[in-house]
């Protein structure tokens, strides 16, 4: 046997750096030659509360601006969604992210986001806030409106305008339908705005007549409407779960299940056939469940959904879904069937959800044995590129890898 001199490190002495944490992700990206195609991450996050000192200046109401300043941007107030995503220190990036050095020339969020994007091989990321996923629970309607407007202004000016690799679908304050419509009118067309977002932890039916002008405005502009799930431990049904695994596993599916059901049985896809919808962060297993459940009931009770001209699953099959958190434990035949049922080849959009705890790498799609290369490319980027009408773009790091291989970008 040979005695060799390796590199030996002590993780307890190392400072936190996303590139180090994700070194294996970068190895995957290089091994799989992700530089050969564009990868778009349709659901990634930043922590907007880290920038509350910047955002509060954008709040138009001077009284609310002070409240925001002194609560340090705590957008959820009394009806917190709750939970412990960081798993009591097990997911180390939660505790250490504030200590990380970011490149100084750009906003910290841009610098940190570019780090994980380059490690994973992501070219363009659609970023969303984090605590604001619960803002729809705020009992003060004006707070949702003011905070959302301030965040959207700050995001478009300080982040999206500064980096073409970052896009977003902007938060809609759905507790005030007029303000939600105004958000579309004021922000559609701004650089990096590729759609609008409804956070689905909320308790107002999205079939309400008050929203029809909003849906028409989005349809006319050809902008997709995204529904981002979350959970709310304070919800009456979730309140009887006593471990976060339960409220997370159920809640992140439930809040999209209930709004999707309302969306379909109220005939919204028939009323706005040009409005494209994207259902985010509920995994995939709920979709075949709901398709079967609604189809079965619709055949018996079609009189209650008379606007529909086809089965509920036929409408659902034309919608878009993001991949994460994709259920991948001993279920490959089920997963394959799910991909067939949702027309994954054209309707499925890769999402990482990074930096959150249950993030998925591009390899979760690339390594699936039942997909051919074109299907993988579609799901990892091409479907989203077409949906968002983006130009093909390969990141600087990936272009360098192409050049090293003697391939022209």
């Amino acid at each position, binding site marked *: 046997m040979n*005695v*060799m001199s*390796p590199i030996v490190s002590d993780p307890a002495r190392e400072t936190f750096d996303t590139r180090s*944490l994700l070194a294996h992700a970068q190895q995957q990206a290089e091994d799989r030659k992700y530089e050969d195609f564009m990868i778009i991450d349709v659901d990634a996050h930043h922590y907007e509360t880290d920038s509350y000192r910047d955002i509060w200046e954008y709040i138009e109401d001077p009284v609310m601006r002070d409240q925001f300043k002194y609560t340090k941007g705590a957008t959820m107030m009394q009806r917190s969604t709750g939970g412990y995503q960081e*798993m*009591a220190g097990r997911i180390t990036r939660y505790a250490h992210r504030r200590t990380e050095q970011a490149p100084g020339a750009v906003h910290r969020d841009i610098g940190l986001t570019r780090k994980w994007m380059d490690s994973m091989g992501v070219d363009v990321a659609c970023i969303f806030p984090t605590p604001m996923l619960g803002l729809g629970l705020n009992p003060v309607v004006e707070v949702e409106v003011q905070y959302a407007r301030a965040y959207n202004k700050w995001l478009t000016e300080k982040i999206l305008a500064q980096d073409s690799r970052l896009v977003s679908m902007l938060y809609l304050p759905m507790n005030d339908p007029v303000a939600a419509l105004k958000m579309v009118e004021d922000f559609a067309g701004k650089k990096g705005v590729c759609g609008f977002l409804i956070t689905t932890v909320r308790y107002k039916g999205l079939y309400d007549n008050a929203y029809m002008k909003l849906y028409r405005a989005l349809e006319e502009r050809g902008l997709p409407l995204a529904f981002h799930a979350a959970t709310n431990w304070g919800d009456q049904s979730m309140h009887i779960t006593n471990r976060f695994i339960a409220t997370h596993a159920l809640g992140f599916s439930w809040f999209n299940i209930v709004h999707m059901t309302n969306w379909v049985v109220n005939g919204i896809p028939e009323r706005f056939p040009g409005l494209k919808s994207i259902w985010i962060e509920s995994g995939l297993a709920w979709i075949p469940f709901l398709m079967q459940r609604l189809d079965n009931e619709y055949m018996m009770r079609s009189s209650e959904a008379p606007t529909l001209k086809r089965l509920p699953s036929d409408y659902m099959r034309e919608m878009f879904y993001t991949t994460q958190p994709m259920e991948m434990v001993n279920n490959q035949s089920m997963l394959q069937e799910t991909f067939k049922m949702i027309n994954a080849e054209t309707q499925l959009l890769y999402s990482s959800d990074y930096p959150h705890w249950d993030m998925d790498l591009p390899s979760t799609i690339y390594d699936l044995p039942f997909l051919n290369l074109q299907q993988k490319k579609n799901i990892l980027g091409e479907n989203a590129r077409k949906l968002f009408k983006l130009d093909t773009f390969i990141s600087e790091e990936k272009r360098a890898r192409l050049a090293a291989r003697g391939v022209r970008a």
Partner: protein
Amino acid sequence: MAEIFVCPESEMKDGDIRIVRQGRTEVGVYRHKGAFYAYRNHCVHQGGPACEGVVKGKVVDLFGEDKTFLGQTYDHDDPHIVCPWHGWEYKLLTGECAPDPRIRLKKHEIVKRDGGVFVLI
């Protein structure tokens, strides 16, 4: 197979971890109650750096004789290696994935010689 020097035995105390990188192979070396263990730094889940996270005792539910729930505690005799990417847990003493022993981290042999710790890669 090569014998890779990790460090002098005296350099690692209980609870310490060293990551050994040799080419593309990365191995986490642990010392627990005086014994050394070594596993490939590659989580079976999504390929995360399993050995670069924290080590925590197995969490145990406590029940009374009548099966009522009394609370939870850590079993520090069953330490778990926790992958920092997603929290997958492996038993430090065997490398088995905590919820499914059919899944495991690749184990590497440790050799102690002349006061040094070596791992076979």
